[in-house]
């Protein structure tokens, strides 16, 4: 298994964003107070990450988890509301 840590911050203030909806191939977690959502995933596959928070531009990426280990995925969300 591999550990994928997704850390979500506001792109303007760089502060961590808690309670953000993070989805990795259908598995859903919310970020903690530190802005991190951690997933344990089988290695040797690609995954689609979707990060959603209504006040911010959606963030979607496909990443490759080649082998076991810990992966860090920073996410900076842009403000999308007036």
């Amino acid at each position, binding site marked *: 298994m591999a550990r994928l840590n997704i850390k979500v911050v506001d792109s303007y203030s760089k502060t961590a964003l808690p309670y953000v909806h993070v989805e990795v191939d259908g598995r859903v977690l919310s970020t903690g107070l530190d802005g991190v959502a951690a997933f344990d995933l089988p290695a040797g596959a690609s995954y*689609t990450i979707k990060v*959603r928070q*209504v006040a911010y*531009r959606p963030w*979607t990426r496909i990443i490759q988890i080649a082998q076991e280990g810990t992966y860090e995925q920073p996410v900076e969300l842009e*403000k*999308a*509301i*007036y």
Partner: protein
Amino acid sequence: MPEESLLLSPALFPPTQLSYVLMNKVEALLKDVDLRVVRFSGLLASRETAFIYLPERKLFIYGGHGRRDAICGENVFSCNLVTVADASIFKDQIVVANPTCEVAAELGPAIVEAGAKAFLGSTENMCAHFNEAEHNYMDDWFDYTLTFYRSVLSKTMGEAVEDWKSAITRYMDLYKSHLDDWPNADWNYFAAKMNRDNFVVLGDPQAMVPRTGSEPTTLKQMGLLEGLSSLFNPETLRKQWQHAFRSLFSFSVVGATVAALAVPAVAGFAIERGWLTGEQAEIAKAVIPGVAAVIPTP
């Protein structure tokens, strides 16, 4: 003859760059139907500008940040371009805030209660859309928002809101049909839904934007420098400077310092380039500290 519309568009704090571009298009729409336009953008989309120019308007349009009880202007931290306490300055006017968050919750009702003909805005957040690899959602946003503004200028306010909702619904249907192959369609569907479902008309839904068939405006204010030029007249300059500086001090010492350095420099630049009349230049030198030093009197 009084100018007929006042259009304010902050441009610095994300995502107001998008609403600023939108307001360029809205300004063109207003001029296409021969409505006179006074436009202020960036730092000049300020509380001071609103109070000086609002009393003679028939239509007020704002695109930028807001909250339940106030239109923010460029300063999203103090957020006081127009507050509930100022509601009476919109008497007999039509007020349109789009895109702007939440202002129809408290500010809108207060403005209508104080005598405005109608207020159009959202009770909840309003979202921007962005172009993504799979689809140009931002283009859709421009399209449905400009559909709304065309209706504002030609139909009743109630019909304009209905047109807004219909235009958004078409895009929501499009996004829904592409949930499987457009990776960001889900968010854009809900963003559009939020924009659609919470947008309301308060006051008289039969109200229409009045027009007198006046000649096209000669006042073009599309940015900081051009906007600055329009402010240089004997009646307003002293008040502008005093109010602006006072509010900047309430914002932060850094802001005040930046303003104290930037405003004289920009004013001096405008004088040097010949954008101001001789009389306006003399007033600027006399009233704004530092301008005379930047542009020595010959």
